[in-house]
């Protein structure tokens, strides 16, 4: 048996063929990573991934009869999701679909130790609470609209 740095090779498993693109594992490379906008400002943490059938597939490749997606159709990441997951992680279940904030995959510019977006956070639904807090809470505190770094 050939030995490698990772130990003896398991003959019950076939070697994985070379893939044509970069490989990302959801938990290892994406989930719970911080998401930064184009100015490196924090947007959110990545709580989940929305998956959908890849567009432009032949008409005979459709989901199963009950609408359930299975391996017969290619699936892609359509959006990164962030939302109120603290309760569901502790007690189980999942937030309703209406509570997720979607960040389209097309806005992702790089995946590393953090996930970079190609858009500004000010235009994203995911940061509405930060904007509301700035306008209605921090802005009403005397001096709250003063930017010490901006005014020199």
């Amino acid at each position, binding site marked *: 048996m050939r030995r490698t740095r990772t130990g003896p090779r*398991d003959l019950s498993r076939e070697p*994985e063929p070379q893939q044509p693109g970069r*490989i990302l*594992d959801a938990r*290892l490379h994406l989930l719970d990573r911080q998401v930064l906008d184009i100015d490196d400002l924090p947007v959110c943490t990545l709580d989940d991934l929305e998956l959908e059938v890849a567009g432009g597939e032949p008409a005979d490749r459709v989901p199963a009869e009950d609408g359930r997606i299975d391996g017969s159709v290619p699936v*892609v990441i359509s959006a990164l999701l962030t939302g109120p997951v603290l309760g569901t992680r502790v007690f189980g279940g999942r937030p309703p679909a209406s509570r997720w904030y979607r960040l389209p*995959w097309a806005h992702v*510019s790089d995946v590393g130790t953090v996930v970079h977006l190609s858009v500004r956070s000010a235009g994203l639904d995911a940061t509405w609470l930060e904007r509301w807090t700035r306008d209605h809470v921090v802005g009403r505190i005397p001096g709250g609209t003063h930017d010490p770094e901006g005014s020199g």
Partner: protein
Amino acid sequence: MIASDLLDTPVHDDAGAHLGWVVDLRFVLDGRPSTYLAGARLHGLVVSPRTRTSFLGFERSDVRHPWPVAPLLRWLHRGTFLVHWPDVARVPGADDDTDRGRDPVVVLRAGYVRYEPGL
């Protein structure tokens, strides 16, 4: 469907035998070209026969340190395999846990192939 519908889900073969749990989803960036990154296609499921989750992916990498953490975690996840997405016959739906008699499980097709999960 969201990733959480698949993660931590039991995996059965076509005869109903328990094979393990989905510990991760593998994507390949070979989809529709975009300005920055290509589309992320779901390539397969990483299945561990012994644990419901994975920790830092030691069983999928050549990382050997810190000793003895890396060898221990690799041993805990021994037998982990990758199954390609076309070998998946059925995935759980959002209402499976409330649908009587239909447990949320991933079912693989007959003749599915186990691949090495290394990155």
